[in-house]
């Protein structure tokens, strides 16, 4: 008999016990998740700020310039963008003379060393966000690969302020996650950190040491 068959046989042979109904989560809202869109924006800002992320207010026209200005101020020389980056033309225009935009268009395995050592920042769009925990929802695909938000030391993220949900479950339900998950959905709540040495908090453990959110309000 295979391990699978043995394990399942033992589980099936065990007493069933009292049936447990599927828990009903419709009534469950975390205490803090009430309020309108403006409150959600404020809560998101406070919470992700508390997790050491930077948030900048911007609008649909101004963000490419703001992004490039902030990057240049942080000493970024080469910034990685996906082939699906929004407003690519305006972004290229804003970057001219300030920093080099590197397009992520090859398989990671073919240029890993360069990506790990030669890139200063990554820029990625964000699907939505979560107010309750101050989190960004990333939905990577071919145009916005996974490593954009992980390997470069600074991660710039573009968020539409109208897409902030109250909590993780609300986002899952509103966006029907269970109907089709990407290969690697991510919920990111700040820059990489660790407290593994004497409970002392340090940023930039293995992922980005800085997370910068551009919050676009129309």
């Amino acid at each position, binding site marked *: 008999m295979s*391990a*699978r068959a*043995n*394990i*399942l046989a*033992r*589980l*099936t042979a065990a*007493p*069933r*016990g009292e*049936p*447990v109904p*599927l*828990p009903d*989560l419709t009534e*469950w809202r*975390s*205490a803090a998740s009430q309020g309108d869109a403006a409150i959600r924006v404020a809560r998101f800002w406070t919470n992700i700020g508390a997790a050491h992320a930077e948030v900048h207010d911007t609008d649909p026209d101004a963000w490419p310039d703001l992004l490039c200005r902030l990057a240049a101020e942080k000493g970024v020389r080469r910034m990685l963008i996906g082939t699906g980056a929004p407003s690519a033309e305006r972004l290229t225009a804003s970057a001219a003379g300030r920093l080099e935009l590197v397009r992520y268009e*090859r398989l*990671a*395995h073919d240029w890993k*060393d360069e990506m*790990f050592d030669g890139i200063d920042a990554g820029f990625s769009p964000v699907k939505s966000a979560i107010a309750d925990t*101050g*989190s960004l929802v990333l939905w990577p695909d*071919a145009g916005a*690969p*996974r*490593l954009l938000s*992980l390997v470069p030391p600074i991660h710039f993220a573009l968020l539409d302020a109208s897409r902030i949900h109250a*909590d*993780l*479950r609300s986002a*899952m*339900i509103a966006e029907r*996650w269970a109907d089709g*998950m*990407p*290969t*690697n*959905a*991510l*919920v*990111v*709540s*700040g820059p*990489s*950190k*660790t*407290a*593994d*040495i*004497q*409970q002392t908090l*340090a940023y*930039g*453990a*293995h*992922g980005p040491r800085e997370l910068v959110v551009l919050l676009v309000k129309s």
Partner: protein
Amino acid sequence: MSQPIEFHPSFAERSRAAVNDPNLRKSFRGAMDFLQAKRRAQFPDADELARLRDLGSAIRRHALANLPELLQQLEAKLTANGVIVHWAETPAEANAIVLDIARRREAKRMVKGKSMVSEECGLNHAMEAAGVEALETDMGEYIVQLAGEGPSHIIMPAIHKTKQEIARLFERKLPGVAYTENVDELIRIGRQVLRKKFAAADIGLSGVNFAVAETGTLFLVENEGNGRMCTTVPRVHVAITGIEKVVAKLEHVAVLNSLLPRSATGQPVETYQNFITGPRKPDELDGPDEVHLILLDNGRTQAYADLQLRATLQCIRCGACMNHCPVYARIGGHAYGTVYPGPIGAIVSPHLLGLESTYPLAFASTLCGACAEVCPVRIPIVDILIRLRTEAQARPEAAHLRGSGSARTGKVSAIWRAWSLVYSRLRLYRIATWFLSRGRALSPTEQGAWTRCRTPLVPASKRLRDLMRERRR
């Protein structure tokens, strides 16, 4: 009278050494106070916490009540998503599966995210023995691996180490690294060493926090980003987990992960919540080409078979029970001698390793109940500890577990036999108690473990029946 419980000498010795180590006591006391305060601050609303724990418990109990069906649903969904599912009854089988994958891919270097199940399997040793480097990449795990130790806490593996010790360790073990007690600098050193390893690794190994049957999703949480590195950068990702980690619905993860980080480290949320639902698609530019999931039994089906002990499997591995345990806070994680220490270790380990080597852990508790009070999924840890004590003393015909009855000694059995003989015969009982009450001056002053920290037991000078008779007069 002999001591009723003969403590496993090595556990007793280890605890004694730990209790007499002032540095270790200070490290753990400080860390436990810190973690308790942080958890408390995360749950200001007692009603919300109570409701959330009810829900968390219901979600886990629902998953366990439907475990065989959910595991098969998980397997079918994962397979449809392109993930290869393996089943292992023992750690040796799990290690063989990982080794087989490594051989097939001609892998030489493996990077590991935090996985207690891989610790349970001794996977690193098995890989090293076969010539595959197995490198821990969580900062705490990296530190304890560099020191040649194991983790002393399931969430904070290097909790027993001071920054001075880590500074000396890095200086000694890492070429070209100078002594520094600056924590930012120490982390920067670790980051630099490990970044090269991520880029060069052939296989990434990780644990799983929850596996979602509905969507075939592996959910992993972490703060550092090493978990994402391990599951994204190498061409092969192998996830390993216990068969109990499955939940029915994706939304169940939202509730459980509202409890997990707040209970564990007192943080509102982890930096990275990672939902892995398949290998790289043909048009995608990163992510592993192959994703494997290994489902490990290793004694979990024994706990499952018993309706009371089944609750052990509700655990979401937050570590709150150990953070609040007065015994753990004093002896630390290594004294337990098991992969999982603290109260959860005391109730899980007997299924993994057998009661014969682990029953002393069930007795190393004051039964104060702090663990059960903070458990986010309401595992009745105290009831289970008492049950394991009973099992450890069980007669062969009443044995339910591997190693049941191993705490029984000939002397104790003889005492109980004599006791039951006297108690079931009235005349004998009267005679025996008459002699005991009149001969109380002969009671021994040395009564084994009892008198080590208590006054000796002495029979009363008058039996209850004598007192009753006097009263009636």
